[in-house]
């Protein structure tokens, strides 16, 4: 009996939204990331895959770990990296986004990572420049590399995300991390729950393929992982919650609040953490529960995989399944 071989080439040259990915794309990213994750633990992890390519990190919003993670990933692969961040001259001088994009494009960078407080900013750069553009976070819209590194971290523990129950807790309204995670976890067939006060949940979030909870104890029931989110005070105008104290009492993650979750429930946090508000310090530091440092480590590996695949230089650029039976 003959079987038709199936070949699939990674089709993307930019990463703007999780919604653009299919499960095969994700598994190709994870496959490369797993190799980098191990290799990065060696003393000399430098590779030459991106030799000769120039990457611009264009961060209109402040960032420490995402910027460092992208820079580390690119340099590990041998690319040249230039960083522009919120304090940089062109950004603080009030140049329009269009002019910044066109000027940088004129320098012919190969890769641009864009973070901006406006939803759609990275898509705009992808449209007007010839570079491979990675969305490093656009407003409260998407942060696809964060979702990929979160899911990758979980797959390292579980093997497969499908069928797992995951609850995202807290300030979902302002969170691009939550939006990207909801898309990705649904794509990977997880059961997704959201939990927070009504003021921090998007209207009609129940249409997003999730179950919405307001009570944390109910929400974490039987969960295999919980994702804490940072309270994004800089995006909040006017009071959305009464006080940090009340938020911590009602929605703050602690060991005690996880008693109804699965016994080996994992805890993620995209950082930076407000210890004592959305997550208790003791829980964040518990190596049996929290995988927060592992997320930071996985971030570099995931971004290396994405950089390789978007530039067409990954070893697994083509996925092949089955062989033509010659008999």
């Amino acid at each position, binding site marked *: 009996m003959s079987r038709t071989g199936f070949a699939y080439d990674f089709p993307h040259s930019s990463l703007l939204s999780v919604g653009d990915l299919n499960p095969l794309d994700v598994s190709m990213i994870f496959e490369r990331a797993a190799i980098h994750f191990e290799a990065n633990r060696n003393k000399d992890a430098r590779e030459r895959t991106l030799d000769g390519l120039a990457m611009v990190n264009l961060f209109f919003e402040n960032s420490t770990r995402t910027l460092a993670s992208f820079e580390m990933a690119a340099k590990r692969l041998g690319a040249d990296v230039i960083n522009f961040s919120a304090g940089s001259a062109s950004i603080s001088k009030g140049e329009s986004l269009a002019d910044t994009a066109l000027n940088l494009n004129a320098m012919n960078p190969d890769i641009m990572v864009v973070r901006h407080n406006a939803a759609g900013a990275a898509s705009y750069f992808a449209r007007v420049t010839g570079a491979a553009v990675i969305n490093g976070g656009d407003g409260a819209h998407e942060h696809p590399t964060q979702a990929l590194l979160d899911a990758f971290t979980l797959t390292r523990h579980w093997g497969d995300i499908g069928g797992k129950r995951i609850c995202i807790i807290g300030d979902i309204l302002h969170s691009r991390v939550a939006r990207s995670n909801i898309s990705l976890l649904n794509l990977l067939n997880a059961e997704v729950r959201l939990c927070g*006060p*009504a*003021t921090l949940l998007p209207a009609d979030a129940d249409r997003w393929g999730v179950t919405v909870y307001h009570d944390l104890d109910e929400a974490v029931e039987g969960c295999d992982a919980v994702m804490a989110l940072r309270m994004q005070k800089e995006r909040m105008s*006017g*009071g959305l919650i*009464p*006080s940090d104290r*009340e938020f911590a*009492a*009602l929605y703050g993650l602690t060991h005690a609040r996880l008693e109804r979750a699965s016994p080996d429930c994992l805890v993620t946090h995209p950082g930076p953490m407000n210890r004592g508000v959305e997550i208790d310090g003791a829980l964040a530091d518990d190596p049996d529960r929290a995988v927060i440092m592992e997320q930071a480590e996985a971030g570099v590996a995931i971004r290396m995989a994405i950089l390789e695949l978007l530039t067409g230089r990954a070893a697994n650029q083509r996925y092949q399944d089955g062989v033509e039976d010659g008999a």
Partner: protein
Amino acid sequence: MTLIRNARLIDPASGRDALGDLRFQDGLIEAVGGTLTAQDDEAVIDLEGAVLAPALIDLRCQTNPRSSGRAGLAATAQAAAAGGVGTIVVAPDPDLSTPESFAPIDNAALTSPVRILPAGLLVDEAGEMGEIGLMLRAGAALLGDGGRPIPDTRLARRALSYAATFEAWSSLRAEDPDLARGTCAHEGDLAMRLGLSARPGGAERMAIDRAAALAELTGARLLLDRITTAEGLTALQTARAKGLEIAATAPITHFIFNEVDTAS
């Protein structure tokens, strides 16, 4: 055991309103209705047709929990017991926006002849949301604006949305603060003749329409505080017809008097 005879038994929950007897023991009703025969050594009270009804609940008791005088809780609770009110909800005031602020109420409840429950402030004077979740945990029966409408509609939306998280009831003053500012009478021919600064019924209607829109948006359960006008009642009926969970209170004085009485 105690037998009460010849009572006009009124129970709104079951729709009962009839003359009859009632027997109770250790604070619980043993038998009710019809004619009951007195047993040996049973105390018998003849009500001669007076009303016997479940104790009333005052959802909005204006008192100062921090005062020990006539306006204080102890005196208020005594008055409530004498008047057939078995539960009083202390109206929210600017000092009731944290669970700790309920301490004087909890203390008074320990020795009170009636049940005393606190209500929490939705939004404090600085425009910050009160600690709604913690106050509900600490026993708040409901939340409220403390009789002062929340002027910032976005803040009102958020506070009601947050309260709706816990399916709590929120009481709102049904009054447009701009139209009502500085007025002392209902706007009409008589108030005009008397030269009084008057508040139009529309001030109440607009506030109720706004509250209804916010309830629709947030899923909040609303208790409209002290409605007094026909326009307000129409707006309330419209809101309830939509299936919104909106109830209202009316001051007893407005069942007895109207602005004509101000001239006499």
